[in-house]
C-alpha cells in the first residue's frame, strides 16, 4: 500500500475507533413478588422469601445489590400508622449458598446473576424477610406494611 493510502487508512481506523461507543455493562432485576407474611399466630417468627431474577453483562455476570426499606434512613421497618415493626433481610444469589444478612443501604458485592438482561431466566436470586416473634409480641395489633427497594448494579 502506498504511503499516502496507508496513512489515510490508519486515520480512518482511528476515527472509527474513536466514534464507536464502549458497550456499557447492563443489569436487570425482575420477577419480584410482594411478601405477605399473613397473620401472626402469637408464636414463632414469620419468614417469607421472594424469588426473582438478576442478570448482568459484567464479566462473570457479577452484580452488587443494595437493599433499603422505607423506614428512616432506609431502615427495614414496616408501619401501621405511627407504630413500627422492624424486620430483617437476608439475600442469596444462587442455590447452594447461605443467605447473607443485609444491612440497609450497604451493598452486597460479587454476586452472580444470569447473563442476559433481555431474557432473565428463572428466579434464582432470593430475598428473605423475617419478622421476629419478640418484635411482633411487642407490637400493637394491626396490619404493618413496608416497601423494600432492591437496587442492582453490574460489577
Amino acid at each position, binding site marked *: 500500500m502506498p504511503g499516502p493510502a496507508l496513512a489515510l487508512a490508519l486515520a480512518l481506523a482511528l476515527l472509527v475507533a474513536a466514534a464507536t461507543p464502549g458497550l*456499557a*455493562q*447492563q*443489569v*436487570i*432485576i*425482575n*420477577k*419480584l*413478588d*410482594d*411478601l*405477605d*407474611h*399473613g*397473620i*401472626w*399466630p*402469637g*408464636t414463632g417468627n*414469620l419468614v417469607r422469601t*421472594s424469588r*426473582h431474577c*438478576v442478570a448482568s453483562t459484567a464479566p462473570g455476570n457479577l452484580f452488587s445489590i443494595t437493599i433499603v426499606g422505607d423506614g428512616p434512613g432506609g431502615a427495614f421497618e*414496616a408501619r*401501621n400508622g405511627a407504630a413500627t*415493626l422492624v*424486620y430483617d433481610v437476608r439475600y442469596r444469589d444462587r442455590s447452594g449458598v447461605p443467605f447473607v444478612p443485609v444491612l440497609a443501604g450497604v451493598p452486597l458485592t460479587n454476586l452472580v446473576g444470569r447473563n442476559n*438482561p*433481555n431474557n432473565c431466566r428463572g428466579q434464582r436470586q432470593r*430475598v428473605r*424477610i423475617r*419478622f421476629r416473634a*419478640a418484635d*411482633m*409480641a*411487642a*407490637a*400493637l*395489633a*394491626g*396490619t*404493618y*406494611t*413496608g*416497601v*423494600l*427497594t*432492591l*437496587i*442492582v*448494579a*453490574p460489577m
Partner: protein
Amino acid sequence: MPVSGPPTGAFSCLVRSALGGAVLATLVAAPVAWAASDGTIGSTSTGNLTITVTIDNLVQVTGFADMAFGTYTGAGNLQDTNNLCVFSTTRGYNVTATSDTGAFTLAGGAIDTIPYAVTWDDSGNIGGAGATVLTHNTLAVGFATDATSTTCAGVGGATAVLTVDMTEANLLAAAADTYQSVLTVVVGPE
C-alpha cells in the same frame, strides 16, 4: 357458729386455666396495595416489593397454679393467690370467671358448700383497673397489661393477681368434709 370440736375436714380449691392458648379476635385489615415492580435494563436496575404482616388481637394468660388450702384449723379467713402473666397485643383485656359448681363455691361430698370471693388485680399496669371483685360468669372489662412479651419478661413475670378468699364465718358454717371447685378464667382482648 360454735364449734363443737376441731374441724377435721380438709378442702381444696383447684384453680385451673381453661385458656390453653391465645384467644383470637378478627381484626379488619387495612387494604394492601400489591405493588411489586420490576426493574428495567440499565447501568442500574431497581425493583420494589411490598411487605405485609398482621398482628391480630391476641391475648394469653399463663401462670395458674392449683390452690390447696389444706386443713382448716378453725380460726381465721383463708386466702391464696396466683401471680399471672397476661399478654395482650392490644394491651387491654377482659376477664370472665366461672366455677364448675355454678357459683363461686367449693362443693363437698354432702350438701354444704363454701362460698369464696374472686378478685382480679391489674394494679401496676398503665391504665389498670385495680383490684376488682369478680362476679360469677360475668364479664369484667377494662383491665390492662404492660407485657410486651408472652412470658411477661421485663415486667417481673406477672401482670395480674388472682385472689381467692374464704371467710371464717363461711368456713365454720361448713360441715367437715373436703371441698373443691374448679375455677375457669377466660381472658379476652379489648
